[in-house]
């Protein structure tokens, strides 16, 4: 029986992409983008999902939204398994999960005005009368702190931060319960990043939203998240409450990541010892056996190559995948 508080439950999600070669396009291998991850997102919280570029965070977000059909595993949204749904049923559920995209320049159709972009979800799901859409769009623009007078403009007439706000307005149009934020600020200027993050936080309070916040900037994730999951090469290594993770990281990868975050205090920075990982991230086409991190882990032993570490709840609410945690 599902806990009432759990809005999204990802259960052993696997996403492999086939590599095809030759005239007949036969499959020669797979990109193991997501290799069995499980986590829950509770109502009203922000779950941060961090990791290096290429670790599979974006793929996770898209697989959850069924933009890619998962190779295996289940995604339960409010108790309903999204993987089984097709056609009309999933369209109805789409109203409750939305997405904010990373690239503000590519996520808006350049041939549509702001009004057309934001009103599209309203019209598709026939939420309001078509005569009232313009007013609703203006409301949404004000909600994301854009001047409603810009309603007839085209995306290329806006700055990156403004376009991202349009994307947020579009995501909010359907009044969703969960928003997957796929690196929404990575493409923006630092000052603009702060504005968007603050906007997202305010909206969460005002509208009771739940966020899955995918990012690679640890400082931002620390600011906005309630809980944080750390991902590496398609596998989640650690998941804990925000403060707990940043104070007591149990996984060697998390420790290394945290040591890489600069502290805005030059004296402390000078004295800090950084953990520098050796080697490169292995290719997801041929991931290391056993623990994915073992090729770069400072404490790796034989068992790490033989057995994949189990995803265990070591303390209350603190999960780790490591033999030595």
């Amino acid at each position, binding site marked *: 029986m599902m806990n009432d508080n759990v809005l999204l439950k990802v259960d052993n999600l696997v996403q492999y992409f086939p590599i095809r070669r030759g005239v007949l396009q036969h499959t020669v291998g797979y990109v193991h983008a997501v290799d069995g991850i499980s986590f829950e997102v509770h109502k009203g919280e922000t779950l941060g999902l961090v990791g290096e*570029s290429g670790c599979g965070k974006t793929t996770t977000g*898209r697989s959850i939204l069924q*933009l890619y059909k998962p190779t295996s595993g289940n995604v339960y949204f409010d108790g309903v398994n999204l993987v089984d749904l097709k056609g009309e049923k999933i369209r109805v559920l789409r109203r409750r999960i*939305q997405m904010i995209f990373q690239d503000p320049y590519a996520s808006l159709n350049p041939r549509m005005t702001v009004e057309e972009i934001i009103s599209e979800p309203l019209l598709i799901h026939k939420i309001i009368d078509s005569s009232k859409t313009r007013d609703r769009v203006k409301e949404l623009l004000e909600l994301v702190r854009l001047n*409603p*007078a810009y309603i007839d403009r*085209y995306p290329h007439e806006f700055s990156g931060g403004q376009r991202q706000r349009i994307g947020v307005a579009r995501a909010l149009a*359907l009044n969703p319960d969960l928003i997957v934020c796929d690196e929404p600020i*990575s493409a923006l200027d630092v000052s603009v990043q702060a504005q968007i993050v603050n906007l997202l936080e305010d909206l969460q309070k005002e509208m009771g939203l739940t966020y899955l916040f995918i990012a690679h900037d640890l400082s931002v994730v620390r600011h906005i998240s309630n809980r944080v999951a750390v991902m590496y090469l398609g596998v989640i290594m650690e998941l804990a409450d925000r403060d707990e993770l940043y104070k007591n990281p149990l996984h060697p990868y998390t420790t290394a990541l945290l040591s890489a975050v600069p502290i805005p205090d030059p004296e402390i920075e000078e004295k800090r010892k950084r953990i520098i990982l050796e080697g490169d991230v292995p290719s997801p086409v041929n991931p290391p056996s056993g623990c994915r991190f073992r090729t770069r882990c400072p404490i790796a032993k034989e068992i790490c190559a033989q057995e994949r570490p189990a995803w265990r709840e070591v303390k209350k609410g603190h999960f780790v995948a490591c033999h030595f945690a």
Partner: protein
Amino acid sequence: MKATPERNLNNHSENGLSTESKEKLNLLKADVIATRKVGRLERIIGKETYRILKGLVTTPTSIIGLVLIALFVIIALAAPIIAPPIPGTNPYSMPRDGYSAQPKPPMSEWKSGTPPIPFWYTALTGREEWVHLMGTSSNAYDIFYGVVWGTRTALKTGVIIEIATLIIGILVGSISAYYGGVVDNIIMRIVDIFMTLPFILAALILAAVLMPVLGRSTLPSVIALIVFGWMSYARLIRGDILAVKERDYVLAARVIGVRNSKILFKHIIPNAIFPTLVMASMDIGTYVLNFAALSFLGIGTEVGYSDWGQILSFARDWITQLGTYWYIVVYPGITLILFVLGWNLLGDAVRDVMDPRIRKMQEASSSSES
């Protein structure tokens, strides 16, 4: 969410402000409010189209191309006035002055079977007798009439072939890109096979085969050119659709829940179609040229039909004496050249107007990588 009144900066109360402050306020407002005036036309047809049209009427090459095309359209429309046909006959069959095999030079008199004299000729020259303005070819066909009415033939066949190949190409390319997988593979291999065939040869053979079936008319050549002319559009639009399909805004439309067919027509095709249209705009000239080539080789229309290629074919008999009978080749030849030139210039201009924008769009969309 309660509705808030539309923010209107002009509601700001200006009572009690000094003139200096009012000026400052106006300057500030001017900064904040939209600074570009958008005309009515632009609002109707959209910003993108407006920009393209504007570019087309301001680029010199484009203007020349447009003028040439306009000239030909006017000639085609005014054909009955410029070269009035004999009442009761098919205007497309070139009027014959007797049956002599000997071509007559330009400005030679019209002896028999004279069509009605056009009013502008009498007005310009004051003469009452019609002449062969461009001479006659062998078997006494009047070249002037052939050229004038041939404009109509050229435009008709060019436009028909253009539209048909575009529709077929876009359909095939869209289906291929939309379904992907095996369907895509099969269709593209068919396209490949078609493309390896030497174009003129294949069209020639098909037209020759169709002639006994369809009789002599414009149809055999038109059909042959359509059958072998759609492949480049299919390939082009398939590539563009595949590229656009991966863009974030298409993904966003799927997340919202837009149906696949609507995504294809509202998001993908409008963004993918422009390069294809650009290519198409240049091709009308080529189609007319190919049609003329087939006619020159004797395929297609009945003897005596107003068709530039056919007039040129009449010069075949006199190739050794083209010095004397230059007018059979020069008049239709120059007309053909100007026609193709006009369309090519227009196509070039369209491509130039489109290109920087396409490049900028591509740069912008790939600007952020993390």
